[in-house]
Each structure stands twice: as C-alpha cells, then as structure tokens.
C-alpha cells in the first residue's frame, strides 16, 4: 500500500522521512515546538483572563482615574502591534526586574523565554479580555443583580453566584476568539528567538530546504489545535447556556 503511494507520489517518501520522529527526521522537534506553543498559549490565556476580569470590574465599578487608566491600557495595547509590545515589554520587563533586584542587593537574573512569553502575551490578551468581559458583565440583566442584593448576598457572593454564571455564555464566543488569537500569537515569539512551533519549523525547513513539507506540517498542527479548541468551546457554550432563556449572543 505504502509502496504504491510512494510510486504515484514521488515526493511523499522523502517528506515522510523528514517528518519522522527519530533524529534524521524533524518530527520530534516540531512536536516539542507545538507543546511549547500550547503551554505559552494556555499560560497567556490564563493571565489574560485574570487581568481581563480585574480590568472589566475596574472599568465598570472603579473610580474615574482607574477607568481612564484602564481605557489607556486597552486602547494602546489594541492599537500597537504585538511584535513591538513583545520587544518593549521583554526588554523593559527584564531591565526593571534587574534594577529592582539590584536595589535589593541581589544579582541580576536572566528571564526565561517561557516566562517572558507568557507574561507579555498575557498582558496583550488582558486588554482584549477586558473588553469582552466588560460587555458580557454589562449585559447581565440588572434585575438579577438587584434580586441577589435583596436576598442579602454581598458583592463577592453576587459575582460568584449570579454575575459570573450569567455572563459566561455571553463571554464564551469572545473568549474562544481570544484563545485562538493566543495560539496564533505564540508564533510571534519566534522573532525574539523562543523555540516554539514556528521557529522550530523554520529551522527544520531552512536546514533541509524542504520548505513546503515543514510549513504545511506546522500549518496542519496549528489547524488541529484551533479546530479541536473550537469544538471544545462550542461544547462549553451549549453546556453553560442551558436554562438561560435570553442568553443568545
């Protein structure tokens, strides 16, 4: 079967050898890169959701100064290319941290690419997540919040038991979009030299000159990630939308 395929498609055999998992092939490197990408994306998404929740609550309930500062944060981050933010935050972050350590009398440290990547992409994600969550929280009917207050729930309990579950189905489409952006933005870390999927692919392609094989294989890996997570978010949405009459975004 395989021999027959190789005879009708001459390039296939060399592609399969190039992509095999053991050292003459580069498949293992690609998968390691994909795992790195996935870890960064997960970390950045988590940091982004955390910043986004705080940002949304600050924009809705904070004082005038907090609101203006948050507006500056979301506007700037959403208007300046991620690539520049990554470079700025990477250098500035390392610098500031080391100056701080110097003040404490510690030795300067080298920030790992992984931590820097998660931090920087998390700050970028946070700006978008702030807007998504703010919109979702705003569209929870006021009557429900007033009812919660009337039952004697405090603000934390109201958020945990009423606002959060009611806004989740409204926020999920936006968050799912953000997750897809997170997986794709990890590719930008290739430019600062972090060995995630895109950089591994380029190295493999560059040293074997088999550009199409490797870039298409990496594309397939990214597509697999996005399609699977699309399924997962679809499932989450139907699950959390159960029993919510008005929740149709």
């Amino acid at each position, binding site marked *: 079967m395989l021999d027959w395929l190789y005879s009708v498609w001459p390039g296939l055999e060399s592609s399969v050898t190039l992509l095999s998992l053991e050292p003459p092939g580069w498949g293992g490197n690609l998968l390691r890169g994909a795992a790195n990408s996935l870890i960064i994306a997960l970390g950045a998404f988590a940091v982004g959701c955390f910043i986004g929740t705080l940002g949304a609550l600050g924009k809705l309930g904070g004082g*005038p*100064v907090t609101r*203006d*500062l948050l507006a500056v944060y979301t506007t*700037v981050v*959403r*208007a*300046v*290319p*991620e*690539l*520049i*933010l990554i*470079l*700025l935050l990477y*250098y*500035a972050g390392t610098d500031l941290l080391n100056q701080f350590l110097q003040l404490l009398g510690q030795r300067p440290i080298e920030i790992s690419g992984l931590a820097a990547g998660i931090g920087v992409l998390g700050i970028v994600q946070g700006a978008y997540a702030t807007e998504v969550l703010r919109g979702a929280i705003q569209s929870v009917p006021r009557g429900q919040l007033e009812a919660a207050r009337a039952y004697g729930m405090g603000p934390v309990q109201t958020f945990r038991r009423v606002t959060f579950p009611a806004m989740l189905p409204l926020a999920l489409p936006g968050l799912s979009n953000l997750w*897809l952006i997170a997986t*794709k*933005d*990890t*590719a*930008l870390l*290739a*430019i600062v030299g972090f060995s995630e999927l*895109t950089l591994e*692919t*380029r190295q493999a*392609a*560059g040293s074997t*000159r088999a*550009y*199409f094989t490797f*870039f*298409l294989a*990496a*594309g397939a890996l*990214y*597509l697999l990630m*996005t*399609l699977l997570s699309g399924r997962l978010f679809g499932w989450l949405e139907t699950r959390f939308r159960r029993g919510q009459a008005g929740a149709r975004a």
Partner: protein
Amino acid sequence: MRRDRLQPHRVGLIAVALGVMVWAGLTMRWDWIPRYAELGAQGLWRTLWLLALSLLIGFSMALPLGLAQAAGPFWLAAPARWFCTLIRGTPLLLQIWLIYYGLGSLFPQYPWIRQSELWPYLRQAWPYALLALSLSYAGYEGEVMRGAFKSVPHGQLEAARAYGLSRFAVFRRIWLPQALARALPTLGGETVLQLKATPLVATITVIDIYAVASRVRQDTFVIYEPLLLLALIYLIIAGLIALGFRWLERRFTRGLA
C-alpha cells in the same frame, strides 16, 4: 459634551502624561532621528501602501468568499469555507514564511518563470508579503461578510425581485449596501488588526517602518527610544483608521433600521 471630557482628574492625568513626555524628550536619546528620518519616511510609506493594497485586494476577494458562503451552491460554499478556516486557523507569520520561502524556492526551478517579464518582481520580497497579507485579510473578512450578507432580511431581497429588479441590481442596490453597513464596525476593527500585522513582513526582508526601527536599534544600540517612537506612529495610524471608519459608519448607516 466638551465640558464632560475635562473633568478635574483628567486634567491631572493629562498633566502627568505631558510630564512623562517632556521627561522622555529631555532625558532619552533622540539624536539618531535626523540621520534616519529619510529611511523612516520610506519605511512608513512602504507600510502604508502595503496596508492599503492588501486591504483593497483582500476585500475584493472577501466579497465573493462571503457571498459564496452565504448564498452559494455547495461546490462554491465548501471551498470558500475551507479557505477561511485555513487562513484563520494558522498564524500569519507561518503563512508569510510558507509563501516567501516555499514559493520563493519553487519558482527559480522553472526556467519559463525566470525568463518571464514578471521575474524582476518575483525576485523581490514585497510581492510575497503583499500576497500573504491580502490572502489573510480575505480569509478573515470573508467570514465577516458571510455574516453580513446573511443578516440582511430575506424579505427585502424578495421585495426587490418582485419590483422587477434584476438579480445583479438587487445585489448592487439592496444586498451589498446593507451588508456593508452592517459589517463596517467589525471591518474597522479588522483593519486595525491588519495594520498590526504589517510589521511581520520585516521578517522576510521588506524594509517597512518596523524594519527601519530595528535597524536603528542594531546600528546605535539605543533600545527603547525607536520602539517607543514606533509605537506612537502605529497608535496614530490606528487612530486615523478608527476615525475614518467612524466617518464611513455615520455616512453609510443612515436610514438603516
């Protein structure tokens, strides 16, 4: 309206921002600017026309892609949907590198391409950058236009047909204007995203404004200043795009329910 914006705390915030800017202007190194001004202007120009051309080409591809998905027969809708999924499911950087290194290594193998009139262009990097950016915009906007075409009430199209308008006239005078008006807010956001995607072309040796700033950093070892100036430039362009789309929205959503 104007008085609302100048609340006391805003005056304070603006004063702080101005203070930071003056401090940055006085203490940071800006002496490299005159030397790189001309190169910077060329880079800015290249960024702008790459953006404009890719928007134009991408959007003219997005219209048929959206229409095929919204109303086309299966054999048109399925490939269009696949194209949009492929583009939206993979990073743009990967697409740019696939097109530049992949096609770029494929073309020289064919003598008839090397002898063709197009070869002087195909040896440069920008056609590949333009192609990648256009395809990407087409993929994202194809999806936006699908939703926009679908959101126009079907009764209006039927009414127009009943008035005796030809199918093309219905499309041109009823369907397309309303779909565009509905898509405009999303398109504005997507256009800013496209602007933010342009610096990726610097990775395939196109000297845009981002590449100029990188060169300043390499030549002079000044790290922050070029990046900050670059961020300011992108902020201004993004602001202009947002203003332009707000004007378009005001103009084209008149009389829309």
